[in-house]
């Protein structure tokens, strides 16, 4: 187990900059998730930590050691790939024991360690099978077994669940988390799925366009997003954004509705701000309620547990998630009122300036 520290790390391919100075500190035993849309550089960063990509600038430490120029095999890491990357011509046992064999571990110990890892993942009956004879979930487990057998300082996961179907993904999500709680090995996990990030991480690193947008615990990111990108990325359905103008007494929306804001917004009256409110913080109110938004129902999506309401308002469409059942039909008028103190205000650059 070890700390991982990433200092001003950069990566460019020719003149194209992929990672533009990233700083992340990962504590011993922490489960950190790198999340972001595709192309944000998260997988590249993980591959740099693994040693599969050169580091153009900056410094990566695993434990006390700078590993910039250390080859992957000497970094004491193990990695699980998106495609699992199991060796097709080796049995499950050979796949899991390959790294030990290369290290020259005595055969008896190889067998014992592979056996232990297999037992902990429920793979014992499959040890003599080939990867092609396994289901997706079993292959995933073998890939994890191959990582566990090495007893590394750091586990790296590169979108390990994206090839699985939705049900299996939920199950494996729990298994990976349970595995981490049992082994307590420092883990860095890459995904584009913010639900995976929210449910599994101790700490989330939101990346966008080669830079870190925000680092924090899942609920911290949810409750206090540092900017509009994080606010929109974390949470499903995504946060609603309404552009308005700050005036005395509140934020004026395009349709003329006035939303109350905190007294001490650090912005000049007349400046353009974006009002962000999560779908579950919009509630139905009687028409004409002060500080509410009049709208027309466009789509009603009942999921059973709650109802998602997509409405058209002046200045764009909004999404609301209602806990209670509702009898609204498309085309009907509805008035939505944001819950008090749950909104966020973002300035022209997308930075969060205040709560509302």
């Amino acid at each position, binding site marked *: 187990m070890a700390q991982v520290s990433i200092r001003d790390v950069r990566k460019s391919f020719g003149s194209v900059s992929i990672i533009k100075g990233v700083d992340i500190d990962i504590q011993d035993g922490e489960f950190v998730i790198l999340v972001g849309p595709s192309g944000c550089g998260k997988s590249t960063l993980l*591959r740099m930590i*693994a*040693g*599969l990509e050169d580091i153009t600038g900056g410094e990566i430490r695993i434990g006390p050691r700078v590993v910039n120029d250390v*080859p*992957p*095999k000497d970094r004491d*890491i*193990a*990695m699980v*790939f*998106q*495609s699992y*990357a*199991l*060796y*097709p*011509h080796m049995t499950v046992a050979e796949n899991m024991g*390959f*790294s030990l064999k*290369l*290290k020259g571990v005595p055969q008896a110990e190889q067998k014992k360690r592979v056996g232990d890892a297999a037992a902990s993942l429920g793979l014992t009956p499959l040890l003599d099978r080939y990867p092609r004879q396994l289901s997706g979930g079993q292959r995933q487990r073998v890939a994890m077994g*191959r990582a566990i057998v*090495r007893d590394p300082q750091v586990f790296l996961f590169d979108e390990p669940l994206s090839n699985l179907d939705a049900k299996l993904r939920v199950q494996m999500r729990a298994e990976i988390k349970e595995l981490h709680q049992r082994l307590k090995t420092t883990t860095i996990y890459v995904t584009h799925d913010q639900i995976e990030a929210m449910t599994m991480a101790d700490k989330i690193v939101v990346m966008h366009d080669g830079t870190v947008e925000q680092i924090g615990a899942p609920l911290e990111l949810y409750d206090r997003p540092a900017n509009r990108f994080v606010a929109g990325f974390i949470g499903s359905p995504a946060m609603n954004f309404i552009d308005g103008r700050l005036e005395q007494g509140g934020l004026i929306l395009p349709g003329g509705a006035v939303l109350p804001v905190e007294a001490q917004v650090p912005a000049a009256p007349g400046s353009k701000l974006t009002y962000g409110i999560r779908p579950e913080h919009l509630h139905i109110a009687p028409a004409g309620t002060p500080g509410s938004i009049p709208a027309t129902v466009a789509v009603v999506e009942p999921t059973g547990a709650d109802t998602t309401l997509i409405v058209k308002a002046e200045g764009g469409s909004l999404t609301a998630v209602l806990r209670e059942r509702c009898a609204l039909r498309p085309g009907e008028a509805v008035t939505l009122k944001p819950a008090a103190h749950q909104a966020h205000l973002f300035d022209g650059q997308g930075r969060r300036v205040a709560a509302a």
Partner: protein
Amino acid sequence: MTALANSPSSRQPITFAFLAQVILIANSFIMLYPVVVMVLSAFKTTGEIFEHPFALPDFTQVGNFAKVLGETSMPTYFVNSIIVTGISIILILVLGTMAGYAVARYESRTNTFILLFFLAGLMLPLKLAVIPLFILLRDLNLLDSRWSLIVTYTAIGLPSAVFIMAGFLRSLPAELEDAARIDGASEPRIMWSVMLPLARPPMAIAAIQNAVPIWNDFFFPLVFIQTDAYKTLPQGLTTFMGEYTTDWGMLFAGLTIAAAPITLLYIALSRQFIQGMTAGAVK
């Protein structure tokens, strides 16, 4: 297929399939007929061949084979053919796989150039260069030796082998290599333990595709080899055809012996061969 055949609207496909079967059977007959006649004639005397060309022979009568193996240089030719074909194929596979691996798996600016260089070899019939080749081999003191054939065949075979291997190795997922690198494998180890076991089908293609023409080649031995002890089968068999008379029975026995190894090799590798030909066709 069966579901299709049972439905009333599938008359057309059945007729087509039937026609295809007829053509294929006819084709197999045309292909197999000379081979069967060759094997049957190998058990007959020259007189019998001309009297009853299509009759089944007495298979216990192996005099032709005994004569070919006992009284001629056939065993020497046979050994020469095996040595020349074997070493050529080994060299083609080893060098071709390594070159193909480097071209396919490592990023370098010279890669395309190197691949194109090899491809140029595919487009160049080496028989056109036989005179300079002859002079070159003479200057290297390789003329009239088995090595003259081995180096020539290896040079001819390499381009296609590199092309086949590079194409296949490129299609293998890069994550496998990364996984092996993290597992602690060195670069040669990755090639040997991870990539090559997966590359058996294209290696079988490269092997068969080169072995058949090398085994059957008549041209280069004719030009390069004078000493009887270094002759290969195709060239050696011509000595059975006399100026005035030919012992046809013996010639057919020799041909049967000559054709056997490559046929067996083809049968042994055909599964891999077909697998390689269709690789990527179905996921």
